[in-house]
């Protein structure tokens, strides 16, 4: 790789990581604000998640007696996987230097690694809530991962590569592909699993601390101070990366190629797209209730069928 191209690629990666890390709490803030306004409340403002993080980051972490390395390492590993995800997924540029790592299976593996370390940490605390939350999270994970794999496989079948950047580039070159049945079905399936994976309604309620219904909150119950800040920040980054991945796969316009010049515009377009998607998700959450835990597998089985149909149609209708 020549000098200027290398500089551009490194700049793109840096910009992407910084935008995701700084923007993730703001995205959560936007979603909460939209929800608050629609419910007739004033809301705490878009910057509130950042203020919470700043407060938590100043405090000492406290670890419960009897917990081991799994509990201590989990926030760091979760943050680490989220940062790597933010660096490899093609959000603002398709010419990232970590491009070979942006393979579909690697990305899903990184996502799963983050979820699994958090579940292990929850079991490590030895409390009833932690174990319950971990068991629920793993149940959902076992249904979500195959759906993500199958849905993105449907998109990669026409490109002939499971590399995400290659898929995005192919969609950029042939925009009509976005409205093909395979793409629409995969979009619906991925939308449902992203909602399930990030613990939003109707699978999990991020605003509740009711013991019997929580999933994500039950797992992070024992964390405090810096550790809690890392877990919450990493979770919001995962949400941002997944929403960004959705926009990259299905609305890829504005993503920069290998050049440096298009980067500012690409960042702006990404911000607008993810903010709109997040606001839409926040608005939709006002109108739906949390699903009973026993009916979640039905929802996820439905999304798996959609993904399977997407694969079938990408092979048979092509």
């Amino acid at each position: 790789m020549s000098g200027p191209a290398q500089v551009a690629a490194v700049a793109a990666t840096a910009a992407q990581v910084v935008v995701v890390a700084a923007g993730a709490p703001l995205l959560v803030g936007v979603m909460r604000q939209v929800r608050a306004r629609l419910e007739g409340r004033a809301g705490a403002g878009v910057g509130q998640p950042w203020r919470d993080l700043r407060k938590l980051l100043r405090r000492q972490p406290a670890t419960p007696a009897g917990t081991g390395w799994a509990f201590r390492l989990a926030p760091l590993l979760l943050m680490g996987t989220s940062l790597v995800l933010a660096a490899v997924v093609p959000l603002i540029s398709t010419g990232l230097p970590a491009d070979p790592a942006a393979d579909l299976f690697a990305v899903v593996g990184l996502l799963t690694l983050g979820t699994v370390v958090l579940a292990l940490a929850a079991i490590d605390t030895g409390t009833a809530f932690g174990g319950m939350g971990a068991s629920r999270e793993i149940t959902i994970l076992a249904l979500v991962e195959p759906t993500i794999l199958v849905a993105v496989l449907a998109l990669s079948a026409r490109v002939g590569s499971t590399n995400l950047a290659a898929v995005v580039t192919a969609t950029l070159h042939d925009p009509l592909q976005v409205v093909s049945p395979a793409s629409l079905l995969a979009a619906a399936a991925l939308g449902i699993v992203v909602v399930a994976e990030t613990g939003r309604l109707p699978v999990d309620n991020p605003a509740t601390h009711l013991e019997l219904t929580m999933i994500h909150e039950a797992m992070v119950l024992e964390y405090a101070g810096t550790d809690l800040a890392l877990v919450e920040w990493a979770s919001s980054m995962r949400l941002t990366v997944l929403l960004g991945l959705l926009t990259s796969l299905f609305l890829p316009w504005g993503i920069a190629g290998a050049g440096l010049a298009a980067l500012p515009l690409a960042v702006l377009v990404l911000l607008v797209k993810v903010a709109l998607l997040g606001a839409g998700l926040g608005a939709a959450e006002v109108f739906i209730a949390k699903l009973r835990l026993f009916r979640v597998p039905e929802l996820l089985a439905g999304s798996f069928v959609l993904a399977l149909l997407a694969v079938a149609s990408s092979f048979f209708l092509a």
Partner: protein
Amino acid sequence: MTQTPYPLAMDLAAGLFLLSAIGVLWRQQLSAMIRLLGLQGAALAGIVAILGVHQHSLELILVAVGVGVLRAAALPWLARRALGDSPAEARETRPVVNVATSLLAAAALTLLAYAVTRPLVALAPSPATTILPAAVAVVLIGFFTLVTRRRALSQVVGFLLLDNGITATAFLATAGVPLIVELGVSFDLLLVVLVLQVLTTRLRTAFGSSDLDELRELHD
């Protein structure tokens, strides 16, 4: 017309057609099932209309209008009238096969449909025949709904799915269905639904429920 939008529109209509059949299996609210049935009727009319526009055939477009009026409006309206308004009757509470399993079964049936129609599609590959598997899949899913649901009304919906699938197969696989045959089939269908509607109402007034399994126990 240009060639690019035609296969795409065909694929989209077929996707909607298949998706609404799967939606019927997914939802347990009878009113939602009937809405999806109307959507499927509209998709079927769309398929026929696209075929008609592509072949420049006024007859097919008229048939599409007829199909749309019957299957997207009249039949769902009749089914809704049979629904009644007691809350106990509003849901398919305990299907023979639970929802998650029946969705997986629907996926398997779809793959089966793709597998068995491959030789048929290979005979004359065209945008119309490549979506033949979707029509066959709807036939299979309709049959599955008919077998695994307990309420009289959801069985009617399953029967209508089955018939939508058969009609779509007929339009896609053949050069064209004669208008008189299509009229006869439609009239038959209307009569069947009317009879089943009367049957459901009688069932409810006699037993207070439209669960067809009660009917079998009465015989024993």
